[in-house]
């Protein structure tokens, strides 16, 4: 019971903290003092109190989009293992439900962006839709390969890679982590795919889609994208954190890992520039090739003797 409450608290608050830590890290590397790591949370509360400014062009689709986006993100959290436990709804082929629920939210955020009739938001939507087509197949191939290894079709299979793959375990883990990490960068719209701090609309992807959202709409969408990042990071945690730790130890390890991932993302954002738009595809395609490597390693393990 305690762990369930902890999990709920994690989904509610850790996304904000992760965003805060990323900003703090960037400030550190930039030689600035930076805002408190609780700043995103303060922003959220502040935005919830503001009045809406809404485009005359929009229809009801624009108004319901933030609700659907946050509902899907929270709902998807039920299917993912968080701190030291299996997912709350731990069903076979749960990753299909997880991915499709997130697709549902993406569908609405795309048409919500198009609803404003702005060419900038159209641009962002078309890029976002395009990136997803590369990310999703690699994600499915990765998870299905890992599940084939253990014959367990729930997310629990992620924790059993090493015990099921003999000498290949470390390699599979490394490539799986890389795939998931690139997915976090892409889906969380971080550098080098997208720059959330850019000031030029033409180069934005996710940020430009929500140009016209304001007040609580904006707050909910920001929260939802934080949750999405947390959920994908939780998959990394499911691979990395060893099984059989005591409840609190693994919860502490989980939180530490989230902190570490945020710091790494912040460091990458400080150290590299974003890739030119026409080359972003190539970066995301790395995911597919790594997923293919995992596939061949799994095949080698199962049939290579």
């Amino acid at each position: 019971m305690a762990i369930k409450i902890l999990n709920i608290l994690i989904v509610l608050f850790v996304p904000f903290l992760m965003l805060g830590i990323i900003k703090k890290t960037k400030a550190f590397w930039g030689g600035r003092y930076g805002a408190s790591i609780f700043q995103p949370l303060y922003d959220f509360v502040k935005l919830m109190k503001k009045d809406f400014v809404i485009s005359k062009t929009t229809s009801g689709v624009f108004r319901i989009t933030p609700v659907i986006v946050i509902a899907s993100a929270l709902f998807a959290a039920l299917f993912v293992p968080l701190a030291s436990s299996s997912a709350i709804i731990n069903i076979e082929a749960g990753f299909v439900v997880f991915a499709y629920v997130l697709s549902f939210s993406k569908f609405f955020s795309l048409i919500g962006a198009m609803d404003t009739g702005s060419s900038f938001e159209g641009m962002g939507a078309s890029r976002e839709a395009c990136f997803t087509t590369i990310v999703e197949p690699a994600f499915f191939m990765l998870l299905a390969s890992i599940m084939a290894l253990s014959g367990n079709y729930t997310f629990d299979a992620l924790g059993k890679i090493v015990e099921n793959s003999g000498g290949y375990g470390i390699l599979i883990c490394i490539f799986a982590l890389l795939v998931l990490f690139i997915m976090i960068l892409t889906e969380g719209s971080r550098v080098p795919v997208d720059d959330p701090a850019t000031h030029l609309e033409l180069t934005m992807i996710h940020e430009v889609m929500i140009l016209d959202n304001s007040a609580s709409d904006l707050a909910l969408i920001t929260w939802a994208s934080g949750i999405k990042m947390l959920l994908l990071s939780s998959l990394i945690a499911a691979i990395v954190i060893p099984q059989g730790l005591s409840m609190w130890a693994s919860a502490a390890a989980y939180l530490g890992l989230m902190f570490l991932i945020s710091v790494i993302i912040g460091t990458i954002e400080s150290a590299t520039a974003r890739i030119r738009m026409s080359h972003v595809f190539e970066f995301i395609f790395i995911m597919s090739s790594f997923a293919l490597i995992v596939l061949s390693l799994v095949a080698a393990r199962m049939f290579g003797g």
Partner: protein
Amino acid sequence: MNIFFIGILIFILSGFIASIFNKKNKVTVLAILCFVGSLLCLKPAFNVLFDGQNLTAQYDFNPVFGTVNFALDSLSAFFVLVICVMSLMGVIYSKGYLKPYLDKVKNINSHLIFLPLLIASMLLVVSCQNAFAFLIFWEIMSLSSFFLVIFENEKKEVLKAGIKYLVFMHISVIFIIIAFALCAINAGGYDFNLFAQVLKENSHLANLVFAFAFIGFGTKAGFVPFHNWLPDAHPAAPSHVSAIMSGVMIKTGVYGILRVLSFYAAPSKALAFAVLIISVISALYGVLYAITQHDLKRLLAYHSIENIGIIGIGAGVGMLGLAYGQMQIALIGFAGAILHILNHSIFKELLFLSAGSVYIKTHTRDIEILGGLIKSMPFSAVLFLIGSVAICALPPFNGFISEFLIYFSMLKGLAIKDFFVLVALLFSIAGLALVGTMAVLCFTKAFSIIFLGMPRSENAQAPTSDSEKSMLLPMGFLALLTILIGVFPQYIFDIVLKPASVVANTSIMPVRTCADLMQTISLCAFGFIAFILVLMVIKFKFSNKVIMHETWGCGYDRANNRMQYSASSYASPFLSMLKPLFKKIFDIEKPKQLFPKSAHFSLHIDDIEEAYVINPLVKFDEWFLSKFEAMQSGNIQSYIKYGLIFLVLIIIGSLFIG
């Protein structure tokens, strides 16, 4: 079974009866008669599906056909269900859709006669147990749908599309005839039961028969590379006809494939892989070209190819299960495929009907010049949105359930310890995921360009009111079905297991894990919808003040409707990634001089198969046949001479053979 035939009789007669009435009541009479006919046909189908009792009937047509068996097992009954419900919705819809045509078009009566005839022939196709009679019904089906396609035959491109359709259907029927003839020679009769006996013993023959049948029926269904008629015929036909054709008629092709599959115990491994690979390619090819299209109905037609591919993936996994002796996997795979047949017919019909509503109001199918229709046609917009979400297989709608089953069967299939199965299934899983995301791209494009933003032309400003009730009602019913199946999948899963077991030739096994999963998914879907609704209520109840303003144009406040993102630009980043797969035809006039007077840009993307396979074939054909032009002299004596030569050749030939 007698009730069933009375229903079919009513269908056949309804067109003739309706044509007696005056213009105003014609379609209403037709709809009422079709409603009665559907009820009569549905009752035995329901009996079969729920009681599991097969119905049979035997008619003696001596001396031409001999005895012809009709039977409704659960596979046939399932298709009867799909055909009746979906066709009825199309017929009801046609009442509103045909209204503007009633005065203009002369051949409205023939349209009203062929429409129920198509339905009746489809019902006969799925219930008939005799190959010879099957082919006759099949031909009636193809011909009546041909006449429905060329409804607006004063347009040249409609006639061209219709003839292309006719040619494709007749090439396909040759393969079906070969398949059946192979069976009939060995079985010594035309009855499907005899076929089944022979094919069960001779698996080599069975695989050969299946290969021919797959090409024949696959052309009807629209598998790549036999799909080329589909994107031409659907836009040419009136919307309710394209809805029935795409929603129901192409499924008779799948029926044929599944029926042949049910004749024998297990297909060879090579065949199972072939079906799986062709299906994955079909799904990808269909959705890829759907993204390139700006003609709404062409776009939907390509999505039919995609969904036939998805159905095929389910069937392919089922065949793999059979080939490797894994009955559970086979059952789940076939159940997914069969459920997707139902689901696709629901949401594709919904989408075609909403597309028809848009067409009737705006008189264009080109989505590039639409926009902002959600304000003038809110109901059609919401229904199209529901259809789009369902076809992208997103929860909590029905498409998700069948795709989930197919994913599940593929995951379970990974447990078959075979290298090729593992690799093929992993690539299929990734392929299906890719298809899903591409569908999202395609339908966010279609929905947002048609219904959202600002109107892009006068056509888009034309509609002042939504479509009439007789058009919205069937669409609303279909939308309700998509949600119901999405929220209560456990009941429909129990039903589709029965036809799946017929295809897999096994008794119904309780697929416990899967049934439990369906239960969980039902709960989740319910919770998800409730959660969204609660959040909506909270949002709109406690909403802060709303200030209306222009869309943010980055400081530029003179943005107009021509500056909006268009469908081509929305798809462009994705398409530029896959350049080599298209034949792009640009039509550009660049702005010249200091003050350019005119400039335009348009992009047309050709089907690569049409450009590089079909067109050269047709060219070769024309060239080849032109060599025989000399024979056509127009003089009757030489024609008699040809006849005589032919007769002599036959006599000589029969002397040698006999």
